[in-house]
């Protein structure tokens, strides 16, 4: 480095009119830098391929192409003096996620697999991976190589806590200005600051995330070693830990979690429930050893209540319909409730075959979602909580217009702007869900697969909430392979928008964003 480089001031004169308000070069520079490092993620499947004696080339090529393009993009824009500010953040986050999915799709295409070889299917699978949705076009799981199957699982783990959050946590200083990037990517209306600096917040979240993943892998493989679950090999334990903690839902098994023993299913229920909780809260409770923080957190309390109510309702339905009895009924009711509400998308039973009442219950749970600051998607518990409080205040103010009632969360007043943002988010969410369902329903009229109106609504809901399975042929044991291309594209868009919590993407569609 040249420490004595001079700052050259431009000559003082009025330049030509500049119409674009976004520093595109700086944004591309950051996207390039992110891509350069993202390519390194291919090292893990390469290691798996070497271990099992499979071909490393699909992954090596994808990694090299991604890192190479990233490096080239970074070099090409290296001259820029601009910084990525709050405004560029939206563009960087949105574009990075589209490109990450492209990177994720390359190994599927290069491996020449029959079911994932088509670029659209590969892109669908990769987007479903990075956004931790878990919707799949794979039909024959035996056909996937071990390294490719592990890559599928790993993309979910990378996407869970956020690619950019990960970059902030582990990479050398990026040219990033402030918290905008972190906030666009982390789920929930506001981030809970664990420490003053963004970088250490990101690092703490990732350490906790990685720690919990390791703990789950250890717990599951211990069950395998103890002989409680013969199919739970260390490979399967790691593969499913990779998709539980990000509330992803991909499985290496055609029968999802039904393939494993009851003990493993209960362990997975516990970790799904943890993954749907606020990580900053978990950090405070477990790492800083202040468990009373859990009891004080209004969102966490409501989250537990909702999980309990949903679980009890499904257990009652499963038992009374005679689908299962005893421990089996408890397990399948609670497993499905936790899996769908936290937007994981695992299944321990083919719920697509359940009666309509059960389907409607699961459908409703897709709109709950995890907690703010969790890896779960959906509307999120805290937004329901705040919206409920706003609703109650509106009713009160109908009777007494003069009454002044600040909305409180954990006892602290919530800014009115935040409340407006919550209301706008829910409106946009419902609008986008309805729009997506309409496109899928119309498109199904031209295709071979029978998609009922409820299925269309469920497919749209499951995509935007990043859950994964829906009902009918696209249920947990089915696949999205037969859908028309337009429906698949719609789902890709819904997953992308849903993972980034809508606003960062929608903002890009406004004229004001681009122009001065």
């Amino acid at each position, binding site marked *: 480095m040249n420490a004595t480089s001079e700052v050259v001031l431009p000559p003082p004169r009025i330049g030509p009119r500049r119409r674009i308000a976004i520093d595109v070069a700086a944004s591309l520079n950051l996207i390039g830098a992110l891509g350069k490092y993202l390519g390194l993620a291919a090292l893990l499947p390469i290691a798996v391929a070497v271990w099992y004696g499979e071909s490393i080339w699909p992954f090596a090529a994808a990694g090299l192409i991604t890192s190479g393009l990233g490096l080239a993009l970074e070099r090409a824009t290296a001259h820029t003096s601009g910084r990525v500010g709050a405004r560029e953040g939206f563009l960087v986050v949105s574009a990075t996620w589209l490109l990450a999915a492209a990177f994720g799709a390359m190994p599927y295409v290069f491996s020449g697999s029959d079911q994932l070889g088509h670029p659209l299917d590969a892109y669908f699978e990769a987007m479903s991976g990075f956004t931790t949705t878990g919707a799949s076009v794979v039909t024959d799981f035996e056909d996937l190589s071990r390294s490719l199957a592990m890559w599928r699982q790993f993309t979910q783990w990378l996407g869970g806590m956020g690619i950019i959050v990960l970059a902030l946590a582990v990479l050398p200083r990026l040219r990033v200005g402030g918290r905008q990037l972190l906030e666009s990517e982390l789920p929930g209306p506001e981030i809970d600051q664990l420490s003053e600096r963004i970088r250490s917040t990101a690092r703490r979240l990732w350490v906790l995330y990685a720690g919990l993943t390791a703990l789950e892998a250890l717990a599951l493989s211990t069950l395998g070693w103890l002989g409680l679950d013969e199919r739970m090999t260390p490979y399967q334990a790691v593969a499913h830990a990779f998709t539980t903690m990000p509330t992803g839902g991909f499985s290496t098994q055609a029968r999802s979690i039904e393939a494993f023993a009851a003990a493993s299913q209960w362990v997975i229920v516990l970790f799904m429930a943890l993954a749907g909780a606020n990580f900053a809260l978990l950090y405070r409770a477990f790492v800083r050893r202040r468990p009373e923080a859990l009891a004080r957190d209004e969102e966490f309390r409501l989250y537990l209540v909702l999980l309990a109510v949903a679980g009890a309702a499904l257990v009652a339905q499963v038992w009374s319909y005679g689908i299962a009895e005893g421990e089996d009924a408890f397990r399948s009711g609670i497993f499905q409730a936790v899996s769908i509400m936290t937007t994981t998308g695992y299944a321990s039973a083919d719920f697509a075959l359940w009666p309509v009442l059960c389907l409607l219950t699961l459908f409703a749970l897709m709109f709950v979602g995890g907690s703010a600051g969790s890896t779960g998607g959906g509307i999120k518990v805290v937004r329901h909580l705040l919206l409920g409080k706003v609703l109650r205040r509106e009713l009160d103010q109908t009777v*007494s217009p*003069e*009454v*002044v*009632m*600040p909305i*409180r969360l954990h*006892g602290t*007043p919530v800014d009115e702007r935040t409340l407006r943002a919550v209301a706008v988010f829910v409106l946009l969410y419902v609008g986008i869900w309805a729009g997506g369902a309409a496109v899928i329903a119309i498109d199904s009229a031209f295709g071979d697969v029978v998609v009922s109106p409820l299925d269309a609504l469920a497919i749209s809901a499951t995509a935007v909430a990043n859950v994964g399975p829906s009902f009918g042929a696209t249920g947990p044991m089915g696949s999205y392979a037969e859908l028309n291309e337009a429906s698949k594209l719609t789902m890709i868009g819904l997953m992308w928008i849903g993972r980034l919590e809508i606003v960062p993407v929608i903002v890009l569609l406004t004229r004001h964003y681009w122009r001065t």
Partner: protein
Amino acid sequence: MIGAGQVGTTVVEALHVDHELTVLDTEPSRLSAVAYRYDVATFQGDGTSRRDLADAGIGSADLIIACTSRDEVNLVAGMFGRREAPRAKTIIRTSEMEYVDLWREGQLDVDFVVCSELETAHTISRTIGVPAARQTDVFAEGQVQIVEFDVEVGASRDVTGVPLRDAEFPRDSKVMAIIRRGETTLPRGDDVIEPGARIVVIGSPQAAQQWSALLAPGGAAVRDVVIFGAGRVGSAIARVLLDQDIGVRLIEASRERARVAAEAFPKARVFNATGFEPDFLERERIGQAQAGIFAMRDDTKNLYAASLAKVHGIPFTIAVAHEAVSLAAFDQAGIDVAVNPRTVTAEEIVRFAHDPRTQQVAMLEENRYEVLDVTTRESSRYIGTKFRDMPVHGALIGAIVRNGSAIFPHGDDVLQTGDRVIVFTEASNAPWVIEAL
């Protein structure tokens, strides 16, 4: 003394007899007003100027009272006072709760901090505890209350219309004074309490509540209060009442202050309204509140809002009178209790500033009477005297505090060394009473 405003003047009035006072103020007219009425030295100067303070003789003072209406001046004067006269006691007046908290935590190097808003709130909360009362004061950590009542026509026949020696008073209580048409007398056995009179009663808190029930039958404990105005005074009152689990509704005309109050008091219901619209008062059933407290900045608004609230049915009204002259007007208009923040502040300052043995004093009847809390000395000539044998010198012992607990003495009880004696006396007699005990 720094500050010769309303608080300062009231303090001067209480202290000038047995203290050598020097009063400092920037305003010559205020100084001359004080100097004409009381025998005190005055000095024109700035309380924040170290030189002015030194010139006024702060270095030789035993007691420094900074009671201007500006916190900053009081704080700076207190600080210089501590520097110039390290052994003098320092009292500062403030209007920020924050400074009171700081002082309690030991972060503020003064001996006593008085907050007008807090004192006003405490005065009002005591009045609410005894709804028939016009004024209340507490002594001995709340074990002894002195309450001033208006005797209404509907009052119980147990205590009115019969000679005092035949009346059935609540236990642990004593009538200390009867005020008829502005004339105060210390009661004797053959005196009769008639409706229309005003009486001063000393007793335990339970007895004070029983008196309230006797004099205003049907009055229940207050659980639902409306406060008009959520400024500093109104917020301080709300805080004190909410701490006692009393339901509070706050009405504030300023949107911003209403928001601040709503955020500060989750348990209170806050309205952004002037409190003058009949529609609003009707719709929110303001008239159903048991008591209304009027703590807006403007006395005329307090008076009008209180009258309007009475019309809407609030039975008991307490109004803050920022100007001393408003007290009489409020009384005339039928407001049940009027509180002047400056008077209660001055009282609190005087309590602390009085004789070191005197723990607290209250001032009644526009400061013509004082309640003293004196600890008896060994050399007092009344040690060992039965209460029935005590001479009457325009003073009356209402209660004694012995070993930490309050006793309401009967004729056969005997005064002992070290007793804390609560005495009701004419202000002019106070130095003599302190001397004799």
